């Protein structure tokens, strides 16, 4: 009996760890629930229930013994699709019976502590290149390519730094878009840039909440109404923060 309980606890720990990593790395809510239930089923617990919101996971299993329930809180969320796909492939392997409980726990713990993101410099360069390309896609001129890269890169850089300094996401987005607006205005003023509108629209693209928006719709469709609406609210607030930052600059002009 004692041993059974211990094993039950361990299975729940693995399930929650997998769910936590996916949720923190920007996976959809239905993927979190699906992964946890599949892992639980693979280790012999057919009856499990989970309730996932963007800020916490409640997971409960029914076995032969008493019903056990655990709750974990998710406080930080970022975007790291590589972790999502790694946990996904581990859960596939567990479902096939290729990985034992201890191994799975070890692998997931490794993934949780790993830092898989691209180097920060490359991220900033990628953001500025993406912004330049998007400016061309929105019918801008090639003359404005370099100014857009400068203001977009500076915007992304300041977003990340402000976010480290003050951990309120909406405020750092507001400040970043304010800097983008100001910098674009200055670039046009000194004659480097030409179309202010196009430069600002292009530069802001790296801050736009695209992942949140698609995840929100996908969650709503899968029937996770609470998660879908709250993610939609987060996306709306982000868009509002970006808009407000630009609006402050525009009202000075």
């Amino acid at each position, binding site marked *: 009996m004692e041993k059974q309980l211990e094993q039950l606890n361990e299975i729940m720990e693995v399930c929650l760890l997998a769910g936590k990593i996916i949720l923190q790395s920007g996976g959809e809510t239905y993927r979190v629930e699906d992964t946890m239930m599949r892992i639980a089923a693979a280790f012999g617990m057919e009856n499990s229930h989970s309730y996932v919101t963007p800020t916490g996971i409640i997971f409960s299993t029914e076995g032969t013994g008493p019903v056990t329930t655990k709750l974990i809180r998710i406080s930080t969320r970022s975007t790291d699709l590589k972790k999502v796909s790694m946990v996904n492939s581990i859960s596939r392997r567990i479902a096939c019976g290729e990985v034992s409980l201890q191994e799975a726990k070890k692998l997931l713990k490794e993934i949780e502590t790993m830092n898989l993101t691209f180097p920060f410099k490359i991220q900033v360069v990628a*953001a500025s290149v993406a912004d330049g390309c998007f400016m061309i896609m929105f019918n801008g001129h090639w003359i404005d390519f370099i100014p857009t890269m400068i203001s977009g890169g500076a915007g992304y850089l300041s977003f990340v730094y402000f976010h480290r300094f003050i951990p309120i996401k909406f405020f750092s987005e507001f400040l970043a878009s304010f800097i983008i607006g100001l910098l674009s205005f200055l670039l046009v003023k000194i004659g480097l840039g030409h179309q202010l509108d196009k430069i600002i629209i292009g530069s802001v693209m790296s801050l736009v909440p695209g992942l949140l928006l698609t995840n929100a719709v996908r969650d709503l469709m899968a029937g996770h109404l609470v998660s879908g609406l709250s993610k939609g609210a987060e996306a709306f607030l982000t868009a509002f923060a970006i*808009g407000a930052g630009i*609006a402050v600059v525009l009202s000075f002009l």
Partner: protein
Amino acid sequence: MQSYYHFYKMGALDKVDLLAQLVTSLIGTSAFGIIFNVPKESLIKCGLIGMGGWAVYYLLEGYTKDAVLATITSTIFIAVLSQELAKFYKTPVTIFSVAGMIPLVPGGMAYDAMRNFVENDYNTALAIAAKVLMIAGSIAFGLVFSEVINQIVIKMKKRKQKV
């Protein structure tokens, strides 16, 4: 340079412009994949899907001048293609679809709406904001539609297996 301004008025598709759009959308969406930390081996696929989606949007918008129709079609294209690729490579769908969706977000129009709000021209601003909402809604609708297509494909495959 002039062709950029008169592009829509001329009604003819300039091949150089189209090429520039394809190249920038490929690079732009791949670069977005780096920000989202998409696995390295999927970056190019991510960019190719973004390029395809943008080509659909650009051509349709150019011919019909209807941004809503172009957005819906392009969203369905991206979502269905990503779902099939995700099944094939056994990875999460988001990896392929997310970067491709980004250019469809009506950022430019939202900017225009806000600019008019700031300049106290509420009538124009509200009109543009309504259009922004329509386009955002059409992205959502495209996602719903692609999910429907996905479910139908799964059901058909199951039925075939039974027979």
